[in-house]
């Protein structure tokens, strides 16, 4: 298997990008855990990074997280085999439900965070 196999096809390339996105996201989440630990010590211990580089890194991580989550939720339609009244639920319905729940969860978390900030 040549090392450049993933450049041979668009599908392979997108797969490798999908898998790679987990790495910067993991780094960002590690930082978040560190921040949560720091926040536990009170306002004095909590000093969020304000550098441009970190903002850029966060924006990239957000794009990666969106791409990774989108691909994951699309695959739910392939993986899940749900029946209602003995009839299989179409994949599209499962995928749309997943994206709907994702949007709802994002709204709830956003509202909770904004509520706490106030």
């Amino acid at each position, binding site marked *: 298997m040549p090392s450049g196999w993933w450049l041979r096809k668009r*599908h392979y390339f997108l797969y490798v990008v999908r898998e790679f996105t987990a790495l910067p996201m993991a780094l960002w989440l590690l930082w978040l855990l560190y921040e949560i630990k720091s926040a536990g010590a009170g306002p004095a211990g909590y000093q969020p990074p304000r550098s441009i580089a970190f903002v850029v890194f966060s924006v990239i991580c957000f794009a990666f997280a969106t791409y990774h989550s989108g691909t994951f939720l699309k695959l739910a339609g392939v993986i899940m085999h749900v029946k209602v009244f003995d009839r299989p639920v179409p994949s599209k319905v499962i995928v749309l439900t997943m994206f709907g729940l994702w949007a709802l969860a994002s709204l709830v978390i956003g509202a909770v965070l904004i509520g706490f900030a106030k």
Partner: protein
Amino acid sequence: MAEKKSATKEKRITIKTTRFDPDKDEKPRLQSYDIPFEDESMVVLDALNHIKNYVDGSLSYRWSCRMGICGSCGMMVNGTPKLTCNAFLRDYWPKPIVVEPLTNFPIIRDLVIDMDDFMHKLKSVKPWIIRKQELPLGAGEHRQMPAQIEEFRQFSQCINCMLCYAACPVYGLDDTFLGPAAIALARRYNLDSRDQGLKQRLPVIAQPEGVWECSFVGECSVVCPKGVDPAKAIQQTKLDTTLRFTLPYGNRD
């Protein structure tokens, strides 16, 4: 006069095929053949047959039915795994076509691959109906409702052509992986209401080299010439085996 000449000029196409004789060659090489492209219905397999019949009889490749059923003539056509009986020259002409043996398998000669690994893996998932106790023939047939057939129908379309193995980079990187077709066929029988062999197949498909080796590239389902979705079979098996492991009474038959 010039128009008449060009109208009667024979249409031709270049086929580059892998040649490899293990007794003479250190590694495979490509050889070009310029052949007539006689009619629009010609497929890559016709081109190979033309080469074998009229140009170079030593060219070796597998084929049988010429109608997308036997699964023998799978090869790499311009880098994509395809049944050569289903790859039309018109889709490539006037560019040359490169025909190579299926990737991820050892080459025996020219376009012929060694399929032993696949055959062993296929056999290991017991792709046949298993009954705990065989009923006498006089007891009648095992009846199924159309909905029960629909559960597994698409997975039963697999023709063991191995295109999915050639498309799978996971198998290419680690050939201990059970692979797409074997798992799809295991699922086909596990979903069959007549079958009772799930617990015999589980140790093979649920091991790390089984479904868990797959990282869902999905190319197996893209290249399948019969519309089977092995990626779906693998992911659904992952979910099923997880539920069997985690849910109370999940490991029941």
